[in-house]
C-alpha cells in the first residue's frame, strides 16, 4: 500500500468522524429553517409566553407546554432520584455478588424496553388505577411523571453507580479506619466525592424525561393548560409535535418546528451544564475534594 493510499484512508476516516458534527449542523439548520418563520411572524415573545395554543384560530403560544414539560420532568426526578441513588449505592457498596449479577441485566432491560411499551403499560394499568384512586380521567401530569420515573431510573442508576465506584478506595479505607460505620462512610465520604458524577447522571436523566414523546402522550391527557394540581392533564412540548404534525400545514406546520426549536434549546442547555460539571469532576477528584 502506498503512502498516497494511507493518506486517502486517513482523510476518509476523518470524514466519518466529523459526520456527527455535520449531522448536528444539518439538524439545527433544518429545524430553524422550518421553525423560525413561525417565531418571526407570530412574534418570539408571543410564541414563548403565549398561553393559548389553538391552530384553528392561529394562536400559537407554547408557554403551557414549557411549564408542563418542566413540571413533568421535575416531578419524575422527585421520585426517580432518591430511588435510583439508593439503588446505585446499593449496587456499588452493599449488594452481594449474586444480587449484582441479577440487578445488572434488570437495569439493562429497563433501559431497553421501548418507550411505546411503557406508554402502553401506563395506558392500560396506571391510568385506570389513578382514575379509580384519585378521581378525574386518570390522564394526568402525575401519571406521566410516574412512567418517566421508571424510564429514567436506569440512566441515573448506572451513571451514579460508576461515579460512586470511581471514588478512590483510599477515601473509604481512611474513613473506616477512623471508626466510621459503613453508612457514615457512604454519607460523609463516598457520596460527597461522587456528587459531580451524580449530578451528571441526574441531568442526563432529565434530558431523557424532557425528550420523551410517545410514552408521555399516552398517559398525560394532552390538554394545553397550566395544571392546577398534579392530577390535571397536561401537554408536553414533545407531545404537541407528535400529536399535530400528521395534519399540520402552513404556519401551523412551522409552529410545530418552532416547538422543536424550544425543545432542542432546552436539551442543549442541559448538555452544556452536564459537560461543565463533567469537566470539573476530573479536576475536583484529582485535586483532592475532601
Amino acid at each position, binding site marked *: *500500500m502506498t503512502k498516497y*493510499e*494511507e493518506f486517502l484512508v486517513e482523510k476518509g*476516516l*476523518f470524514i*466519518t*468522524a*466529523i*459526520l*456527527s458534527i455535520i*449531522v*448536528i449542523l*444539518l*439538524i439545527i439548520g*433544518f*429545524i430553524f429553517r*422550518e421553525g423560525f418563520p413561525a417565531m418571526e411572524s407570530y412574534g418570539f415573545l408571543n410564541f414563548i409566553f403565549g398561553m393559548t395554543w389553538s391552530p384553528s384560530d392561529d394562536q400559537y403560544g407554547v408557554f403551557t407546554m414549557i411549564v408542563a414539560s418542566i413540571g413533568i420532568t421535575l416531578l419524575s426526578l422527585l421520585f426517580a432520584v432518591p430511588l435510583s441513588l*439508593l*439503588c446505585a*449505592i*446499593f449496587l456499588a*457498596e*452493599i*449488594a452481594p455478588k449474586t*444480587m449484582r449479577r441479577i*440487578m*445488572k*441485566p434488570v437495569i439493562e*432491560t*429497563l433501559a*431497553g*424496553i*421501548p*418507550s*411505546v*411499551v*411503557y*406508554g402502553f*403499560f401506563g395506558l*392500560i*394499568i396506571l391510568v385506570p388505577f389513578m382514575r379509580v384512586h384519585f378521581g378525574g380521567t386518570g390522564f394526568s401530569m402525575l401519571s406521566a411523571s410516574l412512567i418517566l420515573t421508571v424510564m429514567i431510573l436506569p440512566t441515573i*442508576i448506572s451513571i451514579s453507580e460508576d461515579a460512586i465506584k470511581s471514588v478512590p478506595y483510599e477515601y473509604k479505607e481512611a474513613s473506616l479506619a477512623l471508626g466510621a*460505620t459503613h*453508612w*457514615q462512610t457512604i454519607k460523609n465520604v463516598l457520596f460527597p466525592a461522587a456528587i459531580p458524577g451524580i449530578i451528571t447522571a441526574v441531568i442526563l436523566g432529565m*434530558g431523557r424525561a*424532557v*425528550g420523551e*414523546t*410517545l410514552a408521555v402522550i*399516552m398517559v398525560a391527557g394532552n390538554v394545553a393548560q397550566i395544571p392546577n394540581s398534579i392530577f390535571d392533564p397536561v401537554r408536553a412540548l*414533545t407531545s404537541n*409535535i*407528535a400529536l399535530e*404534525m400528521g395534519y399540520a400545514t402552513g404556519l401551523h406546520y412551522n409552529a410545530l*418546528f418552532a416547538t422543536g426549536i424550544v425543545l*432542542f434549546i432546552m*436539551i442543549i442547555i442541559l*448538555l452544556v451544564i452536564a*459537560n461543565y460539571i463533567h469537566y470539573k469532576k476530573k479536576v475536583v477528584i484529582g485535586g483532592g475534594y475532601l
Partner: protein
Amino acid sequence: MNLNRIISPKIAQRIMKGLFWASGIITILILLVIIGYILYKGLPVVNMSFIFSNPIDSGRSGGIFPFIISSLYVTFIAILVATPLGVGAAVYLAEYAGEGTIVKLIRFGAETLASIPSIVFGLFGLAFFVVYLGLGWCVLSGGLILALMALPTILQVSEVSLEAVPKSYREGSLAIGATKWQTIYQVVLPAGIPGITTGVILGLARAISEAAAILFAVGAALSVPISIFDPARPLPLHLYIIATEGISLDNAYGTAAVLVILVLIITVVTNTLVERYSRKMMGR
C-alpha cells in the same frame, strides 16, 4: 447531626442497609411487574399465525407479519449505514486523532447526537429526508433517521473497545513492517470485533424500539414493504397506533409482548458477548 443523638450510628447503619436492599428489590419488582403483565396478557395472543399472517381490518384482528418485516427492514438499513460510519469515526478517534480541539468537538458532537430527543430527529427527518431530498414516506427515510440515532452508540462503544486493544499488538505489527492502515485493518479491528459487535447490537436495540423519530417518515402502511421506497409500519409504531386509537387491545398486548421478547433476546445476547469478551481480555 441532631439525629445522631436520637439514633445511634449502629442503628442508622442497620436502617440504611434495609433501605438500600429495599431500593434494589423495588427496582427488580418494577421490571418484573411490567414485563410479567405484558407477557401474561400478550403471550396467549402470540402464536405462529399471529406472527406470520397479515393484519385484518387495520389490525383489529389477524397478525403482525408486515410490521415485523418493517421493523427488520428499517433496522437493517439503519445498521447497514451506521456501522461503517460509526466504526470509521471510532477508528479515527482511537488511532489517528490526538487530543486536539477537533477531537473534543467530535466527541461533543456524538454526545449531543445521542441526547437529541427522538421527536426532534422526527422533525429533521421529515424536513430533510422526506421533503428536501424528496424520498417521501418510506423504509429508506425511516432507516436513515434510525441510522443517525444508532450512530453515536456504535461510535462510543467501538471507540472504547478499540482503545482497549493492547498497545503491544500495534507495535508488533508495525515492527514487522506493516503500514498504519494495514495494522488497523488486520490487527486492531479484528481484536476489537467483540466490542464493536456489542456497540452494533446496542445501536440496533435503539433503532428497533424507536417510534417517535419515524412517526412522520415511514408512513403507516398495512402491507409488507418490498422496495426501500415503500411505506412501512414498524412494530413500535403499530403498537402506538392500535393502542391510542383503541383498535384492538388483544393485538396491542400481542405486539407489546413481541417487542418485550425482542428486548430480552438482545439483552441476553449482549451480556453473553460482553462476558465472553471480558473473560478473553482478562485471560491475557
